[in-house]
Every structure is written in structure tokens, then in C-alpha cells.
């Protein structure tokens, strides 16, 4: 335009304004879309998807003979998706129809559906539906859209309270677990996870990958479509070194014992593999699967018997300690095994009289007979020659006071009793201490696990393995994930003659000593009974034994402790015998006296408990 009245630069100014605005917008878009694209994309994805988690079946746990100890079974949950039936009368009608087959309260059910509908979130109406209800419900499913049944895997322990102290149990997340796992996408607040034992230790392997139904929802949370139904990946299976029959024998034996309390540990002396591992009292891990909190599963007023006697119970070893004393005597060179000691039933230590367990006395006994008959007086006399320090050294060599190293939590180390301890305490060591030490009383404390290690070392010539119980872990795709390996922790160096003499004496224990009840046809059993004095009540009974067949290296070594069992020979030895028989069942001659092998208890019928309301994931 040719009008000089109008300042042309004003148009330029306006143009610069438009240009600057565009530039600012582009820079802002660059920031949001190019730099922040991934961030916003994630929010957008979260906005539109909702997940109904389906927990993957945990890996199974098998015994070495492939009997399932922990497994999973399908469980059906009823889920309500809001979006289809949402109006008041519709929900009323649906709640009324569902209440009867679910056995739930109508008002309560209606309230839950209403809440779900108003929050527009799917909800689990019932978990673990029995098949009887399933039929009735799947009919309703067709009538009431929005109700659906999903399959989930639920933990199941077929044998109930079987190996419970090793297997452990699973439970819901608590705050501490959540702190650990909240970052893990595989866990939600609703997840169950291992709370104790193997279930806890191998949580990562057993867990598997959860599946889920990924739903697309619109801005009001209404279901728009199912995006993806992701299949779960089961966890890895764990095969244990535990022999199911031996374990059953151990548990049965403890249950039938006088007090019903105690522990059995059976090891393979060649490798340290745990063949049986029982601790009574035990618990049924099934009861934690459904209930919310751990404690809810227990009957009112009861405390979970989580105390693991085999690892955490420390007892005076009593006469089984004489094996260690014997080693010290024979190694010291100051005691002639042929030399006899005359036992009158007591020993006069000057200030005090120490009794033999046999008040009548054993008469003149040499080493082998003394150990076989567990003559206290013989050990009182000879241990003074060898010296308390020598016995203490040998006790340490046999790993008294040291944990066995089994990879289970909470193991106690017991206590070594000896002069060096007193010296450290700036106290005195008396002759009475030497005598008490020699027969395993006094302050010596051992766990059943350590006792098993002791007898296994005798069987294999002094090798202490780290006990292990996981034979192999196999992933769900069949690939071997890990294999348990024997690991030598330490060795006891003794003269071959010492071993021979001790073994001879232990053989005599069975043949005509204190534990004749543990004789087995077709196998040579070596053993030693023990009685742990208990000032609070009846004495605890010990029995340690190993068995060989056809002079092959021993395949099993057992330690049994029965609390308040009084005599090792009567209460503990039969249990050990049953365990050995069960473990060696394939090698014992068939024509031998009928071996009573105790079958594991039959799997109980699937648990039918009232459906427990579930929470929805995310």
C-alpha cells in the first residue's frame, strides 16, 4: 500500500511477535515431546492400563525320590469387572444371585460390588473357590456380565506338616518385605512370598513370573478392552537331598516318642547331603496360604512352633561326647587301650564322688568295652591322664562350638567346655570339670546337627562337610539352574588305629552294648547312646549312629535327640533304626526280617475353607 501515513515498521513488529511466539511454542514442544516423550509415554500407559495379577505357580519342592513336598494347585477366583453392570438395581440383583453360591453375606457382598463399581476398579469377590461352587458360578457368569472366573496357582503342601522346618512357609507381604520388593515389578502388595526356610531362601528361584490380564480402561476407569493376557512363568523346581521315606520315618518316630519333641538329622557321610531333617514340634505350612497375616492361621493362643530343634536346640551331649573323649585318649598316647579300669559304680575325686550311670559298676573294663557300655568311671580315670586340654582340642576339631554351616538361618553353635574357656574368664579349672567334660556333661552344648556331623565324621574318617539339602534346581523350561555340591569344611586328623578302635567300640554298642535295639539285619550299624542331664525335668535322650552295608563306605549317619526321652537306647535308638532302614531300603536284603517302612502320610483332601476375600492388584 502506498500510504505513507502508516508506519510500516509496526507490521514488522507484529510479525516479530508472531515469530517469537511460534519459536517459544516449538521450543516448549521440543522439551515436552522430544526430551520428555518417554516420560509422558509412561504416564499415558499407566493411565490406560489396569492389571489383574495372576500369581505364577511357585516352583515345586521335591524330595530326592521325587515326591512333591511343596507344590501348587489351581485355585479359582471370582472377579467382578465394573463397567458392564453398574446401576443400583443391577448390582442388587447380581449380589443376591452370587451370595448363595459363595456362601457370603448379601449386604457385605453388595457393599463390595458397589465400592468396586464406584471406584471403577475390578475386585476379587472370592478366592479359592471349590469346584462345587464353580459350577453354580459359571452359570451365573453368563447371566451377569462383569463377573468372571480366573485361574490362579496356590501353594499347597501335600504332606502338611512335613519337613516344615526346612521348607518353611509363605505368607503375605509385610512392611519389611515390601521395603525389599517394592521396586520389583514382579511383586505387588498382594503377592505372597516365602517367609521362612527354603521358601524364603530360594524366593527368587521359586517365585516365577506373575502373569496378568492387562486391561485398557478409559478415563473413567471403565473397561474398554482386554489388551493382553500374559501367561505366567512357573518358578524353578527344587529337588532336595531329603529322602521322603527316611524323613517320614524320622517324623513318625519323633511324633510317637515319649515327649513328641526332639530332632532327627540324617546326613550322607560321603557328601554332607541331608537325608532327613526333622524337628518336632512342627507346623502345617498350609494354614498360612490362605489367611492374611501369619498369626491368623494359628488357633487362638498358640505360638507358631518355629523353633528348629535340630539347629537351634543346644543340649549337653552326654555320652555321645565320649566318642570325642576317646579320640583324645587314644591320640594322646598316655592311655593304653588294653589297660583296664575297675568300675565300682562311682569314682572318688577327693572332694566329691562322681557316679557311673550303672550304679552296680561295670567291673574291670578296657577301652572298647568301656565305650561300648559307656562306662563313666573309665573315662573319669583316663581323661585325667590325657588332660582336659587334649579333650578340649579334640572337641574343637570335631567342630563343637562351631556351626555346621548348613545354609539355614538361626543355627546355634553350642559351646565348647574346657580349660581355655575358664582361663579366658580368669576363672579356675577344677578336677571335677575334667570329669564332667569327659562324659559330655558340664558346660558342653551341642545341637543335633552337630551331633550328626560328629557321627558322620566318624563314619567317613574325619571329614566335616557343609551339610546341604538342595540337590538341584531345575528351571521351568527344564534347564538345570544350580546343583548342590559337597564342600569340605574341615578334617579331623586321627591315627587309623584310633578310628578302628572307636568304630569297633561303636559296633559293640549295637551288638552287645547300650543300643542293642538298633540292630538291623543286613547292615552293620555303629552307634552311641547318650543321656543329657536336664536339671529342669527328665533327661534328654541322644542316639547317634551310622550304618554300612557290605563294607561299603557308610551312606547314612543319623543323630536323634528326644527331649525328655530319658534313655537313648529306648527312645532315640529305635527312631534312628527306622530312619536307617528307610534310607537303605533298596540295599537291605529283601529276605531279611520284614522291614517296616513308614509311608509318608497320605495327601489330605484338598482344603476346603470358606472363600477369603481378596484384594485386587494395582
Amino acid at each position, binding site marked *: *500500500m502506498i500510504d505513507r501515513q502508516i508506519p510500516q515498521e509496526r*507490521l514488522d513488529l507484529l510479525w516479530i511477535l508472531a515469530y517469537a*511466539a511460534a519459536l517459544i511454542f516449538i521450543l516448549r*514442544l521440543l522439551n515436552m*515431546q522430544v526430551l520428555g516423550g518417554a516420560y509422558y509415554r509412561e504416564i499415558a500407559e499407566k493411565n490406560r492400563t489396569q492389571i489383574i495379577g495372576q500369581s505364577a505357580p511357585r516352583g515345586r519342592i521335591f524330595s530326592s525320590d521325587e515326591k512333591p513336598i511343596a507344590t501348587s494347585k489351581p485355585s479359582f477366583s471370582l472377579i467382578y469387572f465394573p463397567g458392564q453392570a453398574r446401576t443400583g438395581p443391577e448390582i442388587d440383583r447380581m449380589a443376591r444371585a452370587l451370595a448363595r453360591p459363595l456362601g457370603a453375606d448379601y449386604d457385605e457382598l453388595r457393599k463390595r460390588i458397589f465400592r468396586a463399581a464406584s471406584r471403577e476398579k475390578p475386585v476379587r469377590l472370592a478366592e479359592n473357590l471349590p469346584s462345587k461352587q464353580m459350577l453354580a458360578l459359571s452359570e451365573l457368569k453368563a447371566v451377569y456380565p462383569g463377573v468372571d472366573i480366573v485361574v490362579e496357582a496356590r501353594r499347597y503342601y501335600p504332606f502338611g506338616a512335613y519337613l516344615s522346618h526346612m521348607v518353611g512357609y509363605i505368607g503375605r507381604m509385610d512392611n519389611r518385605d515390601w521395603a525389599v520388593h517394592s521396586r520389583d515389578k514382579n511383586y505387588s502388595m498382594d503377592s505372597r512370598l516365602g517367609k521362612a526356610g527354603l521358601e524364603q531362601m530360594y524366593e527368587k528361584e521359586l517365585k516365577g513370573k506373575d502373569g496378568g490380564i492387562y486391561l*485398557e480402561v*478409559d478415563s473413567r476407569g471403565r473397561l474398554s478392552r482386554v489388551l493382553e493376557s500374559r501367561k505366567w512363568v512357573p518358578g524353578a523346581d527344587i529337588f532336595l537331598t531329603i529322602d521322603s521315606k527316611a524323613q517320614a520315618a524320622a517324623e513318625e518316630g519323633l511324633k510317637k516318642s515319649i515327649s513328641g519333641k526332639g530332632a532327627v538329622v540324617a546326613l550322607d557321610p560321603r557328601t554332607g547331603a541331608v537325608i532327613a531333617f526333622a524337628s518336632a514340634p512342627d507346623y502345617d505350612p498350609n494354614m498360612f496360604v490362605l489367611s492374611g497375616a501369619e498369626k491368623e492361621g494359628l488357633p487362638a493362643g498358640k505360638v507358631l512352633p518355629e523353633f528348629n530343634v535340630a539347629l537351634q536346640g543346644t543340649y549337653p551331649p552326654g555320652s555321645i561326647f565320649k566318642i570325642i573323649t576317646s579320640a583324645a585318649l587314644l591320640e594322646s598316647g598316655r592311655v593304653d587301650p588294653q589297660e583296664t579300669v575297675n568300675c565300682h559304680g562311682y569314682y572318688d575325686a577327693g572332694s566329691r564322688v562322681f557316679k557311673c550311670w550303672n550304679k552296680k559298676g561295670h567291673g574291670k573294663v578296657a577301652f572298647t568295652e568301656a565305650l561300648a557300655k559307656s562306662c563313666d568311671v573309665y573315662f573319669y580315670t583316663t581323661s585325667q591322664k590325657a588332660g582336659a586340654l587334649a579333650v578340649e582340642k579334640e572337641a574343637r576339631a570335631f567342630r563343637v562350638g562351631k556351626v555346621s554351616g548348613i545354609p539355614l538361618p538361626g543355627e546355634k553353635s553350642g559351646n565348647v567346655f574346657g580349660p581355655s574357656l575358664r582361663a579366658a574368664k580368669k576363672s579356675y579349672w577344677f578336677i571335677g570339670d575334667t570329669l564332667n567334660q569327659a562324659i559330655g556333661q558340664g558346660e558342653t552344648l551341642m545341637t543335633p546337627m552337630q551331633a550328626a556331623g560328629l557321627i558322620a565324621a566318624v563314619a567317613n574318617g574325619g571329614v566335616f562337610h557343609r551339610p546341604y539339602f538342595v540337590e538341584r534346581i531345575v528351571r521351568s523350561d527344564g534347564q538345570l539352574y544350580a546343583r548342590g555340591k559337597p564342600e569340605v569344611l574341615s578334617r579331623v586328623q586321627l591315627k587309623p588305629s584310633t578310628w578302628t578302635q572307636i568304630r569297633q567300640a561303636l559296633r559293640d554298642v549295637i551288638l552287645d552294648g547300650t543300643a542293642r535295639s538298633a540292630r538291623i539285619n543286613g547292615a552293620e550299624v555303629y552307634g552311641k547312646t547318650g543321656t543329657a542331664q536336664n536339671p529342669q525335668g527328665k533327661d534328654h535322650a541322644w542316639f547317634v549312629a551310622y550304618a554300612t552295608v557290605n563294607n561299603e563306605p557308610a551312606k547314612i549317619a543319623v543323630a536323634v535327640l528326644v527331649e525328655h526321652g530319658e534313655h537313648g537306647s529306648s527312645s532315640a535308638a529305635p527312631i534312628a533304626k527306622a530312619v536307617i532302614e528307610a534310607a537303605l531300603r533298596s540295599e537291605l536284603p529283601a529276605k531279611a526280617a520284614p522291614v517296616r517302612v513308614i509311608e509318608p502320610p497320605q495327601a489330605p483332601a484338598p482344603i476346603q475353607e470358606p472363600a477369603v476375600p481378596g484384594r485386587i492388584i494395582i
Partner: protein
Amino acid sequence: MIFTPPSGLRKTRIDWVLFLAAIVLLAIGTIAIFSSVAVLPAQARIVRVQLIAIPLALIVFGAAWSLNYQVYQDQWKFVYGVMLVILAGVLIFGVVDKGARSWYRLPFFSIQPSEFARLGLILVLANFLDKRMGRIRELPTVVGAFALCMPVFLLLIKQPDFSAILITFPVALVMLFSAGASLFHLSIIIGYAFISALFPILWSIITLNPELLDNTMVSYFFHLSDSLFSASVFVAGVALGSWLLWRLSVRLYANVSGAIFAGAALVLILGFFSGMLVKNQMKDYQQKRLEVFLSPETDPRGAGYNLLQARIAIGSGGILGRGFFSGTQSRLGFVPERHTDFILAVVGEEMGFWGMLLVTGLYVLVMRRLMQGARLARDRFGYLVNCGIFGMFLVYFCINFGMLLGMAPVAGVPLPLVSYGGSNLVATMAALGIAESVYARRYALV
């Protein structure tokens, strides 16, 4: 020798670049609209309206282009009259939607007269400024221009349609500016507008922070708008205050004209009354939008939430976008008003950064061609009309983008050519048609 102009300056009858840019924007907008409404229950109606509006808009464009634009100057009284009549008529015959009586309902579609009124005002204002070009630097010209706008604004407030005012007022400013009005006068007008907007904003801030009411001054200020009495006390106070200041400046021998004080007091008082008018006419949701802009966290599930969702939609588009018809944010309804005011969220989500860059670039191109057209216009009227249309695009562009990117309040302003809205589309294409008419009748060579 016959003179042949260089090819670049050859006189074409139509500015193809402007037209094609508009058509491409329209195409992008239509795709985005169809995508965003695919899951809406009103889908069929929206698609139908859009498919009717596009040919209608093209016909109107063609008509406006072929008609000599000077006829509007000739018949400005008629234009102005029709404009006021349709705006007044809608208050009587119109239907209420979202609390505003701003629609004529016709058998097949509805018409929003304020969209056309804006265009009419540009024409009338251009005529006025053209006539007063000799006295453009005088205050009465500026005041007169706004006096011309005032009836329109009052009718719009009555609906109430604040976003129409929000668009039209700056357009008038742009026209005055490009006509060469005095910057001082313009700043008085801007000050007046600022004060009329400031009062409602201050009152909103007080509503948001009730603890401020403990202060008596604040409390008194808050209740100013409640009654005519307290309002007149305020007016008297302002008048007295400015008179005292003037006396003081005289005593101090400061060489300041009394007119400045009188003017300042007048602007303050007028701004106050306009602000009071705005506040009393504001609907709840408009009040809410203002509050949300002032403090977004007050209402996470409300307007602030919507804006956030729109931003998530844009951001999640990334560089390449999520593809046509696959934006989850907009299709699943997380983005509000997604086919109208927030259409850019859909474009950003589905077409990504490149799509947004394209829309921005096309807008800049359209504005550039409009400005070019203004420079080439045959007369001042054409120049001013083009400047007004340029200003309209500029304001729409700034407010719509700014709102979406969190730089301006949610004003309910569509993006012409891209957003859904039949009246807006037809009015916009009519405006572009008039701009093309100016271009077609320009001098051959400049």
C-alpha cells in the same frame, strides 16, 4: 515492447499459498477430529457437522473471495446493524449450552453468532479507522474505536462468552496498532483492560486463600463488588485520592498536567466497574478455570487434571507420534474437549513433534501471507481488514498453544481450521476469503 512482469510478481487472482496452507490445516484438523471422536457417543453428529461445514466453508470462502471487499466499507452500517441484531437475537432466541446462551438452533446444526460478529467487527473497525486516518493519533479516535466495540462486548458479556471478548479485544488493539494509533493511547486502553482483568483475578486469589480475609483491608476490598454503595465509596475514594495527588504535585511545582491524574482515576474507576461486571457475569466453571490457572493444585481432578492429561497426551506423542487413530490419551477420554479446544493434544499425541511442527509452521505461513496481503492492499481499508484478520489468527494461535502448553489459562478458545466447530470454520474461511479478495484486488506491482 510489451512489458511483462517477472514471473514472481505476476498478478494472480488468488494467493494459492495461503489457500493451500489453510486447506492442509483443515485436513489435519479433520483427521484429528475424526480420531478423537471415534469413541464418543456423539460421533455421528460431529462427523456429519464437520462434513457439512467443510463444503459450506469453501463456498463461503469462494463467495467472499469473488466479492469486492470494498462493499463492506460502503455498507458498514448494514454490517454493523446485522451484527448487533444477531448478537441481540441470540440472547432472546438462542439456546443455552454450558451456561452460555450463545447458539441459534437450526434443524440440522447450530450457529454461534459471536464467531461471525468478530469478523463483522473487524470490517466495521477497519472502516472507522480508515475514515479517521487523518486524526489517527488523537485520543477520540481510539476511544471512538472502542466505543464502536462496546455494544458488541456488552452483548457478549450478557451471554456470557468471555473467550470471544478475549479474542476480539486484542484484535481491535492490533488493528489500532497497525493503523498507527498513538502508543500512549494504546497503553491507556491496555491499562484499562488490565485493570478490568486484575480485579476478578485479585478476587479469585482471595477466594482461594480465605485466610487473607482476616486482614480488614483485604476483606473490605473483597466485598467491594457486593453492593453499589461500597462500590461508590471506592469510586469516591479514587477520585479524592487522585485530586489530592494532583494538588500535591501542584504544590511541589511538578510540571504534571491535571489531565493525567483525571485520566488515571478515570481508567481505574472504569476498569473497576468492568471488572465488577465481568465477575458478576462469570459462570462457576469460568471462575474455576481462572482459579485453576492461578493455583493448579487446588483441583487435581478438575480443570487442572484435564490440562495435565492434555499435556501428557502431547508429551506421549514423542517425535513421530503414536500414529493416526491410536492415541490412547485422547481416544480413551483422558483429554477433555479433545475435538475442540484441545485438538492440538490429539495432533501432538497421534502425529508427534513433526505434526505439531507442521501445524505451527502452517500457522506461521498463514499469518505471513496475511501480512503480505496487507502490505499489497489497494487501499487502507483492505490493509486494515487484513491486519485485523492477521491479528485474529495471531491471538488464536497464542492463546490456544499457550493454554495447552501451560502458559495461559484454559480459556475455551479453539484453534481455527483445526478445531471442530462449524461456525468457527465457516467464519474463518469467510475471513480468509475476504483476505483473498483484498489480495486479488491489489495493485499489480508494488
